[in-house]
């Protein structure tokens, strides 16, 4: 298998951030947040997602988590917040 390049990691991180915004209510204000704060928020959302799908809860973007994120899915979002 080809080794993962820094570019792959960056693309995965961007993809995951979008996924978590769409489905796990990840809040970003559009401005790049401090690395530590942003990282811990994302990590927490990844944990929630991994827990729901029964994946190993690591808080990291491992291959199983990325594979699940790439699956086609329902785009339901919290209607309570919408109201």
């Amino acid at each position: 298998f080809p080794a993962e390049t820094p570019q792959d990691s960056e693309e995965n991180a961007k993809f995951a951030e979008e996924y978590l915004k769409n489905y796990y209510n990840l809040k970003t204000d559009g401005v790049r947040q401090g690395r530590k704060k942003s990282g811990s928020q994302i990590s927490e959302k990844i944990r929630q997602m991994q827990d729901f799908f029964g994946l190993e809860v690591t808080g990291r973007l491992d291959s199983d988590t990325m594979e699940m994120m790439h699956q086609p899915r329902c785009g339901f979002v919290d209607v309570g917040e919408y109201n």
Partner: protein
Amino acid sequence: IFPGNSGWKKSELTYRIVNYTPDMAAAEVDAAIQRAFQVWSDVTPLTFTRIYNSVADIEISFAAQVHNDFYPFDGPHGTLAHAFAPNNGIGGDAHFDEDETWTSGSRGYNLFLVAAHEFGHSLGLFHSSDPSALMYPTYHFIEPSEFHLPDDDVRGIQSLYGAREVPVVPEQPSNPSSCQPITFDAVTTLRGEILFFTNKTFWRQISQESQAEHHLIKTFWDALPNHIQAAYEYQDKDQVLVFKGAKYWVINGYEVTKDSPKSIYDLGFPRTVRRVDAAVHDENTGKTYFFVGDKFWSFDEKKQAMDSVTPKKIIDGLPGVGSKVHAAFQKNGLLYFFDGHRQYEFNAAKKRVTRVLKSNSWLKC
């Protein structure tokens, strides 16, 4: 269910198809939508009436990108559709991403399967974490003709609306002839007998000489579900494993073990696998083969582990058998693979098909 939302306060609901996708004929869309509602009306007192000229409880539309609900779609793949929990206005409405390719078959995304999921939201169900549930958030194709609403979804919807009141009909096998064309959900040996599962029943071939018996599954194993999807016998442990969705049950003779059902992921399947189509243990190699779509996995019973993290294509590993296997078992050292009304006798040593038979060849007609 959605926190704080107890569903619709009425049982007679209306729906309207606001527009159509150009991917399918209008009649195909109508049929897919109607059938998706029927999935839920079959198990609840709810009724769904189509209306045309006024706003319905559940408004159904196809749209791409931004479409006036603050939740824009994202182009092909990714999000396929979304729906809103029961409420006035947009509540209950279901939106399908027009950038997807919608079909009534298996290419692209099957509208019936996605609509049935979305209407679950329209009726008040949230996502399920049970991978075999319809309300699991990710799409997985299954043959629509083989679709049965999983137990998790039935329990969810009936917690909101109760069960459908139907006249109690005694459940007896309809006693179909074993000679008419039959497709089997699963086939397995059990202590020298052969069991052929179909829907809620199974045929029991006790010996080559005897006439096959026909029974309800529940009569023998009350804890087993109907419409099982795969089964195999592992004689070294005197066990039969029975699969449905992401769960499996272990049978020891005529008892289902107390720790059943278990998760198929404990066997080493990745989370992307949501059902097993067929399974067979090969006594010659000590391996168990699990069939999922057009691929199969090899499982080492001694190590209790998959032989590889990736499955093989059926057409590569089992030439002549076809691209899918719906049921399988082993008898007298030969493997038998079922696909629809056909059965392939396969010699693993010679790695070739030795006979093509009718699926019901073992049931004495």
